[in-house]
C-alpha cells in the first residue's frame, strides 16, 4: 500500500532534526498516534515505517517510568509442555516467564551488545579462548538463599554431556569446560575462540537456576526459585502464570506490580483481545491485522526490524535440488518487494537468499545487490535443468510462509513450471518433513550475532544445515569471524560468507520478518531488542504502565 517500499527500513534514528522536533511537539501537544503517523506518512514514509518511528519517538520522549499496575500479556502458544527450566525453553511463553523469573550472566542491549547482569564483569582473553565472569555478591534467590558460583556451574552443566536435553547445546559446543575460580567467579575454557560468548550468555536458555532446583522440579513440581524481577505466584502449564514484583530484587527492578502470562492461540482472537482492551500486550500480530490495530485508538503495534527469516529449502543432496540450474532458476522467481508488501504488509525487509540483514548493522553486506525477479533467467535455467515439476512441503511455521509459496507457485506456472504446494501439519513437521523432503520451508529466529546466525544453518558441519550446502571455504570463514574483533575485517569476512550463501546454498530467503507485536497505548518503555517478541522478551523488567 506504499508508494516507496524501499524506504521501509528508515528508523527513528535516521530522522533529521526538523522531523524529530515536528514529531515531538505534535506528540507533546497530545496528538493521537494515528495523527502522528498520518503526519509522518505525509512526508512520504510508509505507514509501517512511520508507525515504528512514532513508537520510538514516544519512547524517547516518555518521561521516567511509573511504578504499579498489573498487566496481561499473551503469546501465541502454550501447552502442557510449558517449562520453567531455561535449558529446555523453546517457546516465547517460556522465554517471557524465564525473563521475569530469572537473570542471566549477561543481558543484551537493543543493539545486541552484552551488558553485565548477574556477572558484574566479564572479559575474554586475548584470542577469545577463555572467558572470565565475575559474579555479583548481593543477589539472592526468591527463596532467600544466596546466589553463588555453584549455581552458575550447576546451570551451565545442563548444557553438556550426552544426557543433556538442552536445546542450545550446540551453540556452546566449543566450550570445553566451566571452571569455578572462586565463590563468585567462574571461567569458561573454549576449544576454539569465540568472541561472542558473553552475548550468547544473554540468550534466554542460559538463565541461571538455583543449584538442584531442576531435579526438584522434575521430581515433584516444586517451582524452582529464580533471582529475577518477579516471583512466581501461580504456574499452570498451558493455562497461565502469575508473577508478582520481587520487592527485594537486587537492583532497581520491575515497574508492574503483577503480570499474567497466558497464550491466545488463535491469531484473530489474540488481536481482538488487544483491541477490546482485555489484554495489554500480545505477541506476533498477524501482519494482515497491523492496519486494523493501528487504526484503533488505545492499541499500538510494536514492530522491530529483525534478521529473523523464513525461506524455502531446496536440499542439494536429493531431488531436484541436486541440479544446480534448478536451484539457480528458482531463486529468480521471487518478487521480494511484493512479498514484503502484500504478504508481510510492510512488516519486514527484503531478503537476499542469505540469513543476514540490516538488523546486524555493520555485519550486513549491504553492497551485495538484491537478487532481482527475473522470469526469463529463471526459465532459462529451469529449461536447462530439464526439470518441469516439483513439490514443496509447507507448514505454517511462520505467518505468511504458505502464501509466499503460493505466490512462488503462481510465478512458476507463468513460465510453465508446475510447482505443487503441499500443506502439511505444523506438529511433527520438524521431525518428519524439514531436512527430509527435497523442498520444504523453514523459519529461524534472529540470533544474537551474525556469526551464529550463519553458523547455525549454513556451517558445513552444522546439524541444522537445512539445504545440505557443504562449503569448506564458508567453514573457514566462520572460524575467522568468531575470533575476529576488528569490525572492518569482520565486515569483509561476513560479506564473503553472505555472498557464498547467496549464490551457493539451496536456500531461498525472500524476506526477513519484523518482530510485530501489539500493546496498549498506555504501555511504555518496551525495549527494542530484535531477538524475540516484545523486545526480545526483555519487557517484564523495563516496561511500565502510564
Amino acid at each position, binding site marked *: 500500500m506504499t508508494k516507496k517500499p524501499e524506504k521501509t527500513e528508515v528508523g527513528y534514528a535516521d530522522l533529521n532534526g526538523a522531523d524529530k522536533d515536528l514529531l515531538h511537539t505534535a506528540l507533546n501537544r497530545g496528538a493521537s498516534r494515528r495523527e502522528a503517523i498520518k503526519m509522518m506518512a505525509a512526508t512520504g514514509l510508509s505507514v509501517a515505517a512511520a508507525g515504528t518511528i512514532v513508537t520510538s519517538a514516544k519512547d524517547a520522549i516518555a518521561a521516567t517510568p511509573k511504578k504499579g499496575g498489573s498487566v496481561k500479556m499473551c503469546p501465541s502458544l502454550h501447552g502442557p509442555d510449558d517449562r520453567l527450566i531455561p535449558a529446555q525453553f*523453546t517457546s516465547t511463553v517460556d522465554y517471557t516467564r524465564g525473563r521475569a523469573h530469572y537473570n542471566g550472566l549477561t543481558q543484551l542491549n537493543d543493539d545486541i551488545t552484552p551488558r553485565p547482569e548477574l556477572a558484574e564483569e566479564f572479559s575474554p582473553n586475548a584470542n577469545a579462548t577463555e572467558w572470565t565472569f565475575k559474579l555479583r555478591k548481593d543477589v539472592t534467590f526468591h527463596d532467600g538463599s544466596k546466589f553463588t558460583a555453584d549455581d552458575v556451574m550447576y546451570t551451565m552443566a545442563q548444557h553438556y554431556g550426552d544426557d543433556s536435553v538442552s536445546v542450545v547445546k550446540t551453540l556452546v559446543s566449543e566450550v570445553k569446560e566451566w571452571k569455578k575460580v572462586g565463590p563468585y567467579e567462574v571461567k569458561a575454557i573454549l576449544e576454539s575462540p569465540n568472541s561472542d560468548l558473553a552475548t550468547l550468555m544473554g540468550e534466554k536458555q542460559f538463565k541461571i537456576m538455583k543449584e538442584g532446583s531442576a531435579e526438584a522440579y522434575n521430581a515433584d513440581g516444586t517451582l524452582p526459585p529464580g533471582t529475577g524481577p518477579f516471583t512466581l505466584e501461580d504456574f499452570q502449564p498451558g493455562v497461565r502464570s502469575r508473577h508478582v514484583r520481587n520487592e527485594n530484587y537486587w537492583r532497581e527492578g520491575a515497574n508492574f506490580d503483577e503480570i499474567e502470562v497466558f497464550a491466545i492461540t488463535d491469531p484473530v482472537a489474540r488481536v481482538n483481545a488487544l483491541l477490546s482492551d*482485555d489484554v495489554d500486550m500480545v505477541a506476533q500480530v498477524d501482519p494482515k491485522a497491523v492496519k486494523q490495530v493501528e487504526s484503533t485508538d488505545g492499541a499500538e503495534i510494536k514492530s522491530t526490524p529483525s534478521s529473523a527469516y523464513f525461506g524455502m529449502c531446496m536440499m542439494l543432496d536429493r531431488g531436484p535440488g541436486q541440479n544446480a540450474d534448478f536451484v539457480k532458476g528458482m531463486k529468480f522467481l521471487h518478487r521480494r518487494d511484493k512479498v514484503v508488501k502484500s504478504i508481510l504488509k510492510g512488516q519486514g525487509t527484503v531478503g537476499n537468499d542469505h540469513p543476514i540483514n540490516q538488523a546486524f548493522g555493520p555485519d550486513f553486506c549491504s553492497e551485495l545487490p538484491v537478487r532481482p525477479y527475473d522470469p526469463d533467467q529463471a526459465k532459462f535455467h529451469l529449461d536447462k535443468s530439464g526439470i518441469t515439476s516439483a513439490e514443496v512441503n509447507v507448514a505454517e511455521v511462520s505467518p505468511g510462509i504458505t502464501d509466499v509459496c503460493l505466490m512462488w507457485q503462481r510465478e512458476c506456472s507463468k513460465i510453465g513450471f508446475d510447482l505443487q504446494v503441499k500443506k502439511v501439519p505444523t506438529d511433527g513437521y520438524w521431525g518428519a518433513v524439514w531436512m527430509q523432503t527435497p523442498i520444504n520451508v523453514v523459519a529461524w529466529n534472529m540470533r544474537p550475532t551474525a556469526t551464529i546466525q550463519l553458523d547455525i544453518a549454513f556451517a558445513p558441519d552444522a546439524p541444522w544445515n537445512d539445504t545440505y550446502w557443504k562449503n569448506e571455504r564458508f567453514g573457514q570463514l566462520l572460524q575467522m569471524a568468531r575470533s575476529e574483533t576488528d569490525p572492518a575485517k569482520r565486515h569483509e569476512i561476513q560479506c564473503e560468507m553472505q555472498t557464498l550463501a547467496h549464490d551457493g546454498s539451496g536456500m531461498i530467503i525472500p524476506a526477513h520478518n519484523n518482530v510485530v507485536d501489539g500493546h496498549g497505548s498506555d504501555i511504555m518503555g518496551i525495549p527494542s531488542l530484535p531477538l524475540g517478541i516484545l523486545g526480545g522478551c526483555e519487557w517484564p523488567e523495563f516496561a511500565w504502565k502510564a
Partner: protein
Amino acid sequence: MGPMIFRRIVIGFITLWVVSVIVFFGLSILPGDAAAIQLGQAATEESLAALRAQLGLDRPAYIRYFTWLGGMATGDMGISNAGGATIASLIDFRLIKTLELGGIVAVISVPLSIFLGLAAAMYPGTWLDRILTFGTMSLVAVPEFLIATFLVLIFAVKLQWMPSIAYMSGGESLWEWLHALAMPILTLVIVVSAQMIRMTRAGILNVMNSPYIEMAILKGVARKRIILRHALFNAIGPIINVIALNLAYLVSGVVIVETIFAYSGLAKLMIDGVQTRDFPLVQACAMIFCGTYVLLLLTADIGAILSNPRLRKPK
C-alpha cells in the same frame, strides 16, 4: 430396569476399552513422537535420544500401552509426556472449567430449545414456525468460529460490553464470572440450540399424526394441552436423546470455542495432546469423553423409559 442399567454399564466399559485401543493406534500412526515435537527445530540425534530416555519413550509401544492400561485400572492416569506434570493435575482444573461452561450452556439452551421447538410445533406453517425453522437451519449451516468471531467483533470490540476472551484470574464474583463467560456461552447456546430446536419440533410433529392426537382434537382439547400433555410425553424419548448427544458435544467438541476465547478446557487440551503426541494425556481425555458419552446416553435411555409407561410398567 436394574439389569438393563448393569448391562449397559458393562457395555460402556467395553466401549471405553475399544476407544483406548483406537486412540493408541491413532497416535502411533502419527509422524514424530513427544520428544521430537518438544525439541522441534532444535532437535539433534543425541538430544532426541536423551529426551526419549527421560520420557520413557524408548520402550516399545505395546509396553507403554499396557503400563498405561494397568495404571488406568488402578486409577492412575500417568505422567504427561510433554512437560512431565501428572495427567491428573492437568485434567482436574480443565475438567471443572469444561463442566462449568457446558453446565451453564445446558441450563440455558435446553429449556430454551424445548420451548422454541414446542412453539414451532404448536403453530406449524405459521410465520413463527417458518422463522424458527429457517433461522435454526441457517445457524446450523454457519461455521462455529464465524459465529464466535462475529459476536466478539460486535459485543467485545465494537460495543465493548463483554470481554473478547473468557479469561479469569480467579476469585471472581459470580457476576464477574458470568460476564467473563458471556461470549462463549452465547456462542455455544446458539450453536447447540439451533440443533435441539429443530429436533424438538421434528420429534413433536412426528407423533402429531397419531390417532390419539386426532382423538384429543375431537375431544375439544386446546392446542396448548395437545402439545404439552398429549404429544410431548410421547415424543420425549428421541428429544432426550438429541439433548444427550448435544451435551456430550459440549464436553468434548467445543475445541474451537475454547481456542477462540482462550478458555482452557478439556477439548483443547486433547487437541494439544494429539499435537504434542502426549499419549497418556490424549488417552485420559478420550476416557473422560467416552465415559461422559456413555453415561449421558444411558441417562437418556433411562429418561426415555421413565417417560414411557409401556416400558415403565409392563403389563
